[in-house]
């Protein structure tokens, strides 16, 4: 076996970061973390290795199964961190149980998936940057995380090339309940809405409702828009649960409008991903240049209950690596500026013991003098680069 080959390979879905890209990634991370800090979010670092059951409870079985899994010395199943939210929710219910509410937590940490999310999301290690607001179930709490997300995107100078789409799971749930769907048909309807297949959705709905209603509802899921989407939805949907969800969305939209932020927000009633996880507001974040969504969030009021303390929570997460890629594309000059940082002056240091005796020795380049000079420059905050010889 050729050993050099196997040693030089890196596993699928893993990569290096270096140079301007690594610096840019650090800048994006610092931008996000400083915004969270500015909104009084406290940083939390959760374990890299945790019990598999944590993620099964926290994310649902289907999501959790994507984890890298292995066993502890006692035989219990462990997993590499799959998300931060699960452990943050556990901490909120246990470690921080007595703390004053609301609890504001933020993080930037790598997560690992054995199976990539889709063909386009090839990474198996990615960095999640996000925040959780725990212990408040108000419109203001929902708005707080939406405003933070939009501030983050605005600060990345993407020229407005992004969209945050809003929905509320109550709308789908209300309709599914009114149609008295069993779990299988419910999932079928969800999938048809998820891929925006209006024609098949209309066919699916026909046995349950009038042809007119089926057609109107099917068209609805294809719409992404502003306030008019809500008005249209009201003309089609009449059940109480969906209506209440539409009212909630509208009251969020009113505030977004008054803040002058409607440019980057959309209402997308066809976003029905992970309905079992979210309990109210859901949102997705898309940025031009990334073929898949770079972030998602919403209200998950049922999660902390599985750790012994039921309380409302809302939060979102962005994929730092995907964001870095996009910012890299959008602002090619940013990386150019970073790369062209003035080259530091080189200080020559000779190690007298290795240096052959003779004329090449320069008494002014004695190592301690070089370091005295270097430390002086460092004290002034300058960059130094020692020339070391070989």
């Amino acid at each position, binding site marked *: 076996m050729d050993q050099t080959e196997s040693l030089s390979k890196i596993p699928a879905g893993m990569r290096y970061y270096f140079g301007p890209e690594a610096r840019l990634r650090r800048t994006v991370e610092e931008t996000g973390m400083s915004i969270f800090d500015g909104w009084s979010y406290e940083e939390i670092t959760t374990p890299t290795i945790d019990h598999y059951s944590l993620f099964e409870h926290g994310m649902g079985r289907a999501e959790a199964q994507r984890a890298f899994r292995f066993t502890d010395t006692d035989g219990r199943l462990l997993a590499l961190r799959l998300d931060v939210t699960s452990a943050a929710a556990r901490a909120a219910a246990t470690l921080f149980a007595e703390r004053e509410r609301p609890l504001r937590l933020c993080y930037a940490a790598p997560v690992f998936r054995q199976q990539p*999310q*889709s*063909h*386009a999301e090839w990474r198996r290690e990615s960095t999640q940057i996000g925040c959780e607001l725990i212990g408040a179930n108000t419109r203001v709490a929902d708005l707080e995380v939406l405003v933070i997300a939009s501030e983050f995107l605005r600060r990345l100078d993407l020229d407005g*090339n*992004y*969209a945050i*789409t809003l929905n509320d799971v109550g709308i789908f749930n209300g309709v599914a309940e009114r149609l008295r769907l069993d779990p299988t048909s419910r999932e079928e309807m969800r999938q048809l809405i998820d*891929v*925006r*297949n*209006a*024609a*098949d959705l209309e066919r699916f709905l026909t046995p349950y409702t009038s042809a007119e209603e089926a057609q109107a509802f099917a068209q609805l899921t*294809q719409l*992404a*828009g502003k306030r008019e989407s809500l008005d249209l939805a009201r003309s089609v949907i009449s059940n109480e649960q969906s209506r209440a969800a539409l009212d909630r969305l509208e009251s969020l939209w009113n505030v977004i409008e008054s803040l002058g932020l409607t440019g980057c927000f*959309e209402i*997308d009633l066809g976003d029905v991903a992970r309905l079992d996880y979210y309990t109210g507001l859901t949102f*997705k974040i*898309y*940025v*031009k*240049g*990334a*073929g*898949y*969504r770079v972030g998602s969030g919403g209200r998950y009021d049922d999660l902390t209950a599985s750790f012994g303390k039921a309380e409302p929570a809302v939060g979102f997460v962005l994929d730092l690596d995907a964001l870095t890629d996009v910012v890299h594309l959008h602002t090619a000059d940013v990386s150019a500026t970073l790369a062209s940082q003035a080259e530091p002056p080189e200080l020559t240091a000779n190690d007298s013991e290795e240096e052959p005796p003779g004329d090449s020795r320069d008494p002014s380049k004695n190592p301690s003098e070089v370091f005295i000079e270097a430390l002086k420059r460092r004290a002034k905050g300058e960059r130094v680069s020692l020339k070391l010889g070989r």
Partner: protein
Amino acid sequence: MPELTIAVAKGRLQDEALALLAAAGAGVSSQDLSSRRLAMEDESGRYRFIFVKPADVPVYVEHGIADCGVVGRDVLLESGSDLLQPLTLEIGRCRIVVAARNGVSLNDFGMLRVATKYPCIAAAHFGTRGRPVEIIELSGSVELAPGLGLADCIVDLVESGRTLRENGLKEVEVIDESTGRLVVNRASYQLKAKPIARLIGALSNRIEGA
């Protein structure tokens, strides 16, 4: 600068897909069509077309390199891509079937050897029925495999059934129907909402009108 990039599957669907797109206001000049270029703009300059192998359509669209694509449902089922499928285009209608040699009953096998270009569809089909199978992946002329003893049956796309008959095979079971689909990238759907809505509208008018 074209508003949308559309990936079109070469081969079986291509002519029908281009005719439908042309009828929906996204036509390519005959001069461009007769060229060998794999990327071209339509006459309005709003759309850029790229012509790729069917299995590559979901790849281009999922990565967002193409905003939309026209491809058969068989390819989507096989690839398991995460794409929006807003429209069923009434083109390229065919069936994905299990076929075996005349007179052979598949129930007589403890394990089936299945030759196919669709390993995922075949595995899922027999998997849900609890039938142990060995999937033999081929890239073409699948109909030969049972006669030559490579496999007990095949899973393949059938339009008229003539190729099956002429190779001594018969349809045993229909797994699914397949027609052409319009697929859309999830991010493009949000970030290029207007041009995409216009394309969907124009295409669905043509389909309903047909």
